[in-house]
């Protein structure tokens, strides 16, 4: 998504003619003049499979957390995700499924955002005061605090910054309240802290949000907000636990086996759709051969050249 690497491509008519000529043989369309002998493989080589965003890693990522997080951050994140989806050696949870490594790799790979994000100013500033009409600003726009959730993600922090700042806030909060780092708390204490973070949900009932402890943690978590931090951790945990193992989490399909998902299959028969799946091996992208490798489907050559974006 870096604009410097985006290229435009002009598809010349001559190039089209050549490819269309090749397609004509298969498709039985009216022949057009100037057909050359371009073949399918050559057409395909022009097309960049990465044009629509990065491909998954070629090999599954390792279960190590050493690219983005510091040692202290690693301990906190590991403890946190281990409470969201607890596990053991026999019944893997987020830690056993390498979710911390998934998050670490994601943050290291994307200096800004892994998902398309409009990240230009002005940024929103929630307020309980009046919203002036026709606001014009280059840096800040006021938005009603109780309506802000309807606008979705409006942070001016990148995920790297949100993790770094959020984990520091978490540490500050637990040291003040318990005198300990988050990772040193008991499981029950960790759950209590996570529950407070979650209870800051702007859509939660007012009685929930008005509890003194919920308000207190909300004062420590300024940026990211308490609920914003919780949501980020939970979303990344679910991604790591349940996305393809190529991305570093879901080790040995732990997440998919937990929910009974057989993984990426090429096809289901009509009978299976109507009734039940026949037994299948759980598999992911690494076990799933590309459809028609090296061959355009059915000889129908689609004469389009590529452009790319990182």
């Amino acid at each position, binding site marked *: 998504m870096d604009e410097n690497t985006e290229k435009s491509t002009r598809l010349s008519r001559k190039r089209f003619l050549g490819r269309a000529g090749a397609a004509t043989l298969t498709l039985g369309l009216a022949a057009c003049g100037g057909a050359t002998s371009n073949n399918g493989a050559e057409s395909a080589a022009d097309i960049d499979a990465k044009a629509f965003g990065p491909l998954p890693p070629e090999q599954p990522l390792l279960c190590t957390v050493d690219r983005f997080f510091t040692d202290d951050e690693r301990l906190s994140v590991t403890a946190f995700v281990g409470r969201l989806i607890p596990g053991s050696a026999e019944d893997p949870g987020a830690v056993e499924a390498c979710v911390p490594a998934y998050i670490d790799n994601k943050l290291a790979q994307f200096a800004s955002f892994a998902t398309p994000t409009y990240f230009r100013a002005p940024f929103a500033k929630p307020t309980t005061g009046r919203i002036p009409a026709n606001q014009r600003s280059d840096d800040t726009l006021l938005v009603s605090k109780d309506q802000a959730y309807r606008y979705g993600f409006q942070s001016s922090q990148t995920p790297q910054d949100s993790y770094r700042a959020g984990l520091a806030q978490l540490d500050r909060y637990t040291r003040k309240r318990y005198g300990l780092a988050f990772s040193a708390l008991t499981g029950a204490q960790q*759950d209590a802290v996570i529950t407070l973070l979650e209870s800051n949900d702007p859509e939660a009932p007012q009685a929930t949000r008005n509890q003194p402890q919920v308000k207190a943690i909300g004062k420590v978590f300024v940026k990211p907000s308490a609920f914003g931090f919780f949501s980020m951790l939970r979303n990344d945990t679910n991604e790591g636990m*349940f996305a393809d193992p190529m991305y570093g989490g879901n080790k040995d399909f732990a997440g998919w086996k*937990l929910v009974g998902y057989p993984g990426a299959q090429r096809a289901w028969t009509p009978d299976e759709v109507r009734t039940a799946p026949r037994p299948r091996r759980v598999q992911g992208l690494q076990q799933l051969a590309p459809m028609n490798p090296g061959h*355009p489907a059915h000889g*129908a050559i689609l004469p389009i050249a590529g452009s790319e974006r990182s």
Partner: protein
Amino acid sequence: MAKTHPKVDVVTIGAGWTATILASRLCAAGHDMVSIEQGPAASTWPQFSHDHDSLRFSGRYALMVDLARESWTWRPDGRAAALPMRQYGSFNPGEGVGGAAVHWSAQLWRYLETDFRYRSHVVERYGESKLPPGATVQDWPVSYDELEPYYDAFEWDVGASGKAGNIQGKIQPGGNPFEAPRSREYRHPALEVTPHGARFAQACERLGLHPFTQPAGIASRAFTDPYGNFHSSCLYCGFCTRFGCEVDAKASPVNVHLPPALATGKYEIRTGCKVLRIEVGSDGRATGITYVDASGDEHFQPAELVVASAFTLENSRMLLLSRSKTHPNGIGNDRGQVGRNYTYQIYPQTVIGVWEGENLNMYMGNTCTIKIVYDFNGDVFDHSDLDFIGGMQLFSEPCEREPFNSVTPLQTKDGSTWGAGWKEELRKNWDSYAGINTEGESIAYEQNLVDLDPNYRDRWGQPLLRITFDWTENEQNMWRFMYARSLEIMRAMSPTRIVSTTPELGGYRIDKYQSTHPTGGCIMGRDPGDSVTNAYGQVWDTPNVFVTGAALFPQNPGANPTGTVAALAYRTSEAIRDRYFDDPGELLT
């Protein structure tokens, strides 16, 4: 200094479905045409040959417009702050050759006869006072009967699957009895339906409703389309919406209309290029379009005819950005009509149930392997004693469930979505929960509109489009009625327990995905005083500019737009091919 290219007959903004439909007809008739496409090239192979990657396509929106470059701002009303959709929520416009029609769900509909004469119908049946305050609903300038041959041609070309409910006025068992008459049966039988859909259908039948399988632009049998493209039958793989189809079973511009267009040698697509504006000469007619390539160089492509064939929202924006001496407020906007009648689609789930111990196969199939009832859509039911106009489809939750984004709807009994208890819930019930979904009408109101944002700009410094939109009392009332109907169906489906309910629609919010069906903004009509274009999408005040797509809809019925978008494009391309060039610049009648 912009580089000027040789003049062509037609230039289009974007290379999505309507552009490729135009190209397949106009280029075959000898016209040369260029499409300027902001995204990359796309084809079945290799882009979609290895695409069962939930994270890349669903989680990271690989086929969608890159928001780092541009987005859309929204505010609920004229007093609130308008903020950009910074990450994907409400809708997912696509980019690249084929546009959003590459990743569409292929739910293929015709609108109801009454949808096309909306205002007249409501006034005739219920009186003027039935219209909600501020409603600006209008009749379409084209009737169902006029559009039927084009619906038929498109559905046949893409090899649609379904069961007709009304063939030439005769109601057919198993189909949608409320649909408008169609001239013939679908080309292919309906798709398979998963156990959740089957249970939904049984419950609906017990309640006296009329369930049928979702008509789909997905082939249930392999076939060769009229252009010579071969399509495999659907593999029910479970990776459909937000994905390209690796076997061309799901119809798209790339596998239906693009190959014949390119085979003419008269069609050219320039990818990675962003249109900045339509240029206008001193006589007020369009002269071509200015665009910028990715290295930042400006180009001018002169053309006899300019077609705004981008996504709905971008078409409105392009007209508004094309300000000139003769059209100071933008093309089509001499009478202040651009941006009016912006509408959307009601889409949330009403209720989720769980059937413990049962597998529902929700991860198989696609969005169309479902059952639907139309008993409460449009005006097929009497609204005399109801406090709203409009209707919705109710349907069994779409399939192709992917684990990473489908775990949190399954709450524990105490509402938790993390921790040991939730993990047990996932283990037991991830494939045993499912909901009832809605797809509802969005009526046009004077306060809902799009215009240019004063604060936010795109990568090239041009203003983003600002959406001012919220649901009103009419939709809130409609929702409560549909919620009650959904609960009746859900109870008749005998779940072990109800997981969650949504009794109130609430206000519109842009953070949650609903549907990629923003509509209106450049609406078609019979009168330049209340529309932007005529019945062909030809802009009243700049007749050598056409608009295609759902921006033309005066208001949005309770069904997906693509079938009607394509039918209108078939009709317009025929008119341009057969009549426009005889007398360029004159309004088609």
